[in-house]
Each structure stands twice: as C-alpha cells, then as structure tokens.
C-alpha cells in the first residue's frame, strides 16, 4: 500500500523509472547511454542546488518583508513599484502562493499596478532561480531575459491598472468558521508550521492540515508565529 502511495505522489519519477526498467530489459546499451546522458545533468544540478537552497533560505529569513509590505499604498508612486518588484523577487514558492499575499496587499491599500508587479515578478524573477537559469542556459541568456521581462512587467502594470479597477475585484472571502485552518490551495507543503507548532499542524500527504482544536494561551502564540512564517500565507486563524 505504501509503495502505491509513493507512486501516486511521484507520477513522473515512477513513469521514468518504469521506462528505464523496460529499457534495461530490452536494450541495455541504450539504457546505459541514457543514464550517462542524465548523470551529466544530475551533476550540474548538484553543483547549483546548494547555492539555490542557501539563497532561498537567506531571502526567507533576512529580507524585511513586513517593512516592504507596509511601504506601498495607493500613492506610493514609483518607490512603491520598486518595493513591489523587490517583494516579488525575494519571495519563494510558485505563483499561486502569491494570490493570498496580493489580497492582503490590496487590503492594505496597494494599487492594481503594484499587484501586477508583485505577481509577475514573483512568477518570473526570483533571485535564486536566476542563478539556476544562468547555470543551465548561460549568464547572457539569463541577463537578457531578465531585462526584457522587467520592462514588460512595468508596461503590463501600467495597462492593467488602466483597464481594471478595484471594484472589479472580489471583496471579502468566506472562511469556514474553524479556529485554525490551512488553505489547501496555497499550502506548498514546506512543513514549517508543523515544525513551529506540531500540536496543531500535521502533514497529510504533501499538505499541512490543522487539527480541529480550540487554541488558547501559548498555543495561540505559536499558531500566529506559524501563520507569519508560512511562505504561502495559507494559515487562517481566529483567536
């Protein structure tokens, strides 16, 4: 049963392993050549992965996101655009992890243009990823794409801010009334909440889930700490 679950979790890897299994049985020399070809890329990845890993952790810990978030409101102008750009560039996680962050920013008064900038830079321009791109496609390729993408993002922000108004956006989202909940759409499965507060949070498959318990005292403090640390801003709680 456990093996079946593992296969289900790693569909791509399982399919590739299966393909290799069949190959080694039918044409072993080709299979060996394929392994050799792959090993080149495995080593390249190993050479760059610790760098990406460390840069991602440092950005998580040391970029003062709270300061950045509090510094772009409706009238923050060009400075606000730059802050939005920095926030997106130093955040980790896929683009959908940025949606709840954007909602929070809207609530704090950020303009549409800045939301576009945060979302787009979050998606395309991330400092640790730039290192990875330069490694596999060359520093020149990376630098050119970075410049062109940055220009495009600012043009898009300008146009979308003209086309979409705040009234076009949904106002309040419903919560399910639980004391603590993890939004499954946005959990990236990093496990940081489980580390901080294992009494409430646990992993179920690749996602974190919250136990249905009332929270009070020291636990409440830990829950708010976990919610703050959550890179996807996926934890909702009411105290």
């Amino acid at each position, binding site marked *: 049963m456990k093996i079946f679950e593992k296969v289900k979790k790693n569909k*791509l*890897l399982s*399919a590739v392993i299966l*393909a*290799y299994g069949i190959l080694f049985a039918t044409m072993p020399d*080709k299979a060996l*050549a*394929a392994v050799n*070809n*792959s090993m*080149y*890329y*495995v*080593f*390249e*990845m190993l*050479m*760059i*992965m610790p*760098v*990406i*890993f*460390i840069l*991602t*952790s*440092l950005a998580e*810990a*040391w970029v003062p996101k709270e300061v950045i978030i509090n510094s772009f409101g409706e009238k923050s102008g060009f400075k606000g655009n730059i802050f939005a750009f920095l926030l997106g560039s130093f955040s*980790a*996680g*896929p683009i*959908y992890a940025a949606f*709840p962050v*954007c909602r929070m920013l*809207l609530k704090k008064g950020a303009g549409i243009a800045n939301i576009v900038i945060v979302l*787009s830079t979050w998606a*395309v321009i991330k400092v640790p990823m730039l290192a990875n*791109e330069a*490694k*596999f*496609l060359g520093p020149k*390729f990376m630098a*050119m*794409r970075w410049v*062109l993408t940055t220009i*495009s993002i600012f*043009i*898009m922000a300008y146009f*979308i801010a003209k*086309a*979409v108004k705040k009234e*076009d*956006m*949904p106002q309040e*989202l419903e919560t399910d009334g639980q004391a603590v909940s993890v939004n499954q*759409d946005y959990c990236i*499965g*990093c*496990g*940081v909440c489980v580390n901080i507060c294992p009494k409430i949070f646990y992993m179920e498959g690749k996602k974190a889930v919250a136990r249905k318990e009332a929270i009070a005292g020291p636990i409440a403090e830990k829950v708010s700490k976990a919610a703050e640390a959550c890179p996807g801003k996926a934890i909702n709680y009411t105290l």
Partner: protein
Amino acid sequence: MKLPKLDIFTLSLWLITAGLFLFFLFKDKKKTLNSTKIAKGMMGGLLGDLMGILFLIGLILTFIPPETIRTFLGKSNVFLATVISALAGSVTLIPAFIAFPLVGSLVKVGASIVPAVAFLTTLTMVGFVTFPLEKKELGLKFALWRNSLSFVFALIIAFIMGVIA
C-alpha cells in the same frame, strides 16, 4: 562518463553565497539556521519531480536524434514552434527550477532559443491551471487581463531575444 566542469560562473556563485551565509550565520545563528528548514521543506517536495525530469532528459537525448529536435524546435519554423511552446508553457505547471535543465538540454542540441524563451516565460507567468484560483482571489477581469497580456509579452520577449541573442 562526461562530467560537467566547475566553471568560473558557478564558482563565483558558490563563493558569494558561502560568504553571505557565513555573514548572516554570524549575525544571528538561530534565525539563519531556522530558515534553512523552510527551504529544505520546499525543496524536498520537488525532489521527486526533479529526478524524474533529469532522467527524462537522458531518455530524450538518447532516443530523439538532435536532427529531429532541430527540425521541430530549430530555426526553420520558429514562429509555429514558438507559439506552440508558449501554449505548452501556459498549460503546464512545473516549477521553473525543474524546467531550466530540460530547456537547457534541448537548446544545447540545437533547439532555437526563441521557443525556449517563450516556454520558460509563459510557464511561470501565464497560469491556465491556476486561472480559477486567480479569478477567485483577484477577480475575472484582472485574471483575464494579466494572463493574456503576459502571453503576448512572452512572445514579444522571445522574438526580441531571437533577434539580439
């Protein structure tokens, strides 16, 4: 077996990163070490897909001859290849982290960079799969505008790269 060389670029990245890490470790040991836990969790979830893609690259390079890659993704019909790559990038949801080695391997054997750029840019910026989520959080009008403009700009970026690279 051919192994990659440690180039000057990677070496300098290592030195800079190690320097930064030591600096912040010295500044606040606990905070810095704690942050590695978050990164570990995020990357741990990717490891399976990452290994899958890396070994898929070996299969592609062994079984699809470079001439075929050059014909379909090469310079002969760049426009069609680019539009198709941009569409493929829009509907797939794999982290860019994993896509770089795959795209890099294809470019190395002769694929044009124009479809490569289009794919990489729409992959991260246009989200077909995440569209319903974006719509729910930020509204239909915003999601439509952002995704379609991103698609158009991905094509523009790709063709400009093709001209100046």
